[in-house]
C-alpha cells in the first residue's frame, strides 16, 4: 500500500519553507512546481474515484481516464493565474512549464515508490520520457494561450481544442509506456524527440505572424 499523500508532504515541506524564504521569480517558480505536484496528487484521487465508479480496470484507466483528469488538473493552476493576476506572456509560459515539471517529478516519485528503483536504464528513459511528455503538453497549451489567437472567444475555444489534443497525446504515451521492450522505448523517445526538434528548429522561428 502506498500513501502518496505522505510522500507528497515529505516533498512539499522543504519547497514550502523555501517559498517563504525566496522573493520574486524564485518564489513564483517554486509555487508553480508545488502547484504541479499538488495537481498530480489530486489527479490521482480523482482518477481513482472515476475508475471506481465507472468500473474500469486499472490498466485501461491509465489510458482512458488518467490522461483526461491529469491534463485538466494541470491546466487549472495556470488558468487561475492568468485570470486573477493577468501576467505577461513570458512569465505565464515559464509558470506553465514549472507546473509540468512539478507534475512530472511527483509522478516519477510515485512510480519509484510503486515499482522500485532497481532498473536504472529503464528509470532514466522513463524519467526523461515522462518529463518531456509533460513539458510538450505544457508548451502546446502555452502556444495556444499566447500566440495562436487574438480574440478572447477564439482563444477559449482554441485552448479547449488544444487541451483535447494533448489529452490524446498523453493517452497514447501512457499506452506505449505501459508496454515492455522496444514499444516502451519508442513511447518514451517520441516526446523527447519533440522537445529536441522544438529546441533545434522552432525556438527562434516560431513567432507567428
Amino acid at each position, binding site marked *: 500500500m502506498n500513501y502518496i499523500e505522505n510522500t507528497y508532504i515529505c516533498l512539499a515541506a522543504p519547497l514550502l519553507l523555501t517559498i517563504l524564504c525566496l522573493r520574486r521569480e524564485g518564489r513564483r517558480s517554486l509555487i508553480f512546481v508545488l502547484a504541479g505536484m499538488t495537481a498530480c496528487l489530486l489527479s490521482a484521487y480523482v482518477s481513482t474515484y472515476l475508475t471506481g465508479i465507472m468500473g474500469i480496470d486499472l490498466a485501461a484507466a491509465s489510458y*482512458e481516464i488518467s490522461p483526461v483528469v491529469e491534463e485538466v488538473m494541470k491546466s487549472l493552476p495556470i488558468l487561475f493565474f492568468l485570470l486573477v493576476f493577468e501576467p505577461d506572456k513570458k512569465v505565464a509560459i515559464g509558470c506553465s512549464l514549472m507546473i509540468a515539471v512539478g507534475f512530472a517529478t511527483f509522478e516519477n516519485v510515485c512510480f519509484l515508490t510503486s515499482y522500485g528503483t532497481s532498473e536504472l536504464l529503464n528509470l532514466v528513459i522513463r524519467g526523461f520520457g515522462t518529463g518531456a511528455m509533460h513539458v510538450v503538453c505544457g508548451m502546446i497549451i502555452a502556444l495556444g494561450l499566447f500566440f*495562436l*489567437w487574438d480574440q478572447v472567444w477564439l482563444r477559449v*475555444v482554441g485552448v479547449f*481544442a488544444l487541451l*483535447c489534443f494533448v489529452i490524446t497525446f498523453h493517452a497514447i504515451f501512457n499506452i506505449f509506456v505501459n508496454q515492455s521492450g522496444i514499444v516502451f522505448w519508442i513511447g518514451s523517445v517520441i516526446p523527447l524527440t519533440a522537445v529536441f526538434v522544438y529546441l533545434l528548429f522552432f525556438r527562434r*522561428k516560431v513567432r507567428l505572424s
Partner: protein
Amino acid sequence: MIERIENAIQITVLLICAGISIFKTAKYRSRTWTNAFFFFGSLALGDIYWFVCLIFYGKTPQISVVSDLSWYASYIFLYLILTRTAPPEETGKAGFLPWLGPVFTVSMALFFMTYGEILGNIICASLMGLLLFSSIRRLKDHKRCRKELFLAVMIFIFCMIEYGLWLSSCFWSSDTLANPYYWFDFLLTVCFVILVPAIKKAVEL
C-alpha cells in the same frame, strides 16, 4: 484486418498532411497553417489511439472519451481555419440557406441518439452544425468570396462524408470491403489529401 489496413493508410496520410502543415508553419509563420497542423494532428492522434488499442489490447477502448475529444478538437480547428480565412465582406446577414446545416445536424443527432449516447451526439451536432453553417454561408456568397470557395467546398464535402461514415456504422453489415463504411472512410482519406491544397489556396490570398 481490413479495418487495421485502412486505419494504417489513413494515419499515414494524416501524418504526411500534418508534416506538410508544420513545415508551412515554420516557413511562413502562418497561424492558419498551425491550425491546420493541429487539425490533421488531432485526427491522426485519434486514429493512432484506436489503432494502438487494437494492436496492444486487441479491443477498442471501453469508454471512448479520449478519441472523441480528439475528433471534437479537429472539428474546432477546422472551424478556426474557416474563421481565419474569412473574407472581410463575410459579416452581413447569413440568410435562410446556411441554417439548413444546423437543422440537418440536429435531425441526424436525434437519429443517432437512438443508437448511442446523448452528450456526444449533442456536441457533434453543434460542431458539425457550425462547420456546415459557415461553409454553406461562404458557398452562398460565392460571387464575393470566390477565392475562398475551394476550402468551403472541401469542408462541406468533409462534413457530408463524416455523416455518411456515421450513418453506415449504424447499419454495420460485415468486415469486408462490401461494407459502405470502408468506402466512406477511404473517401475521407482522399478528402484529407485535397484539404491541403484547399487550405494553401485560402492562405495564399
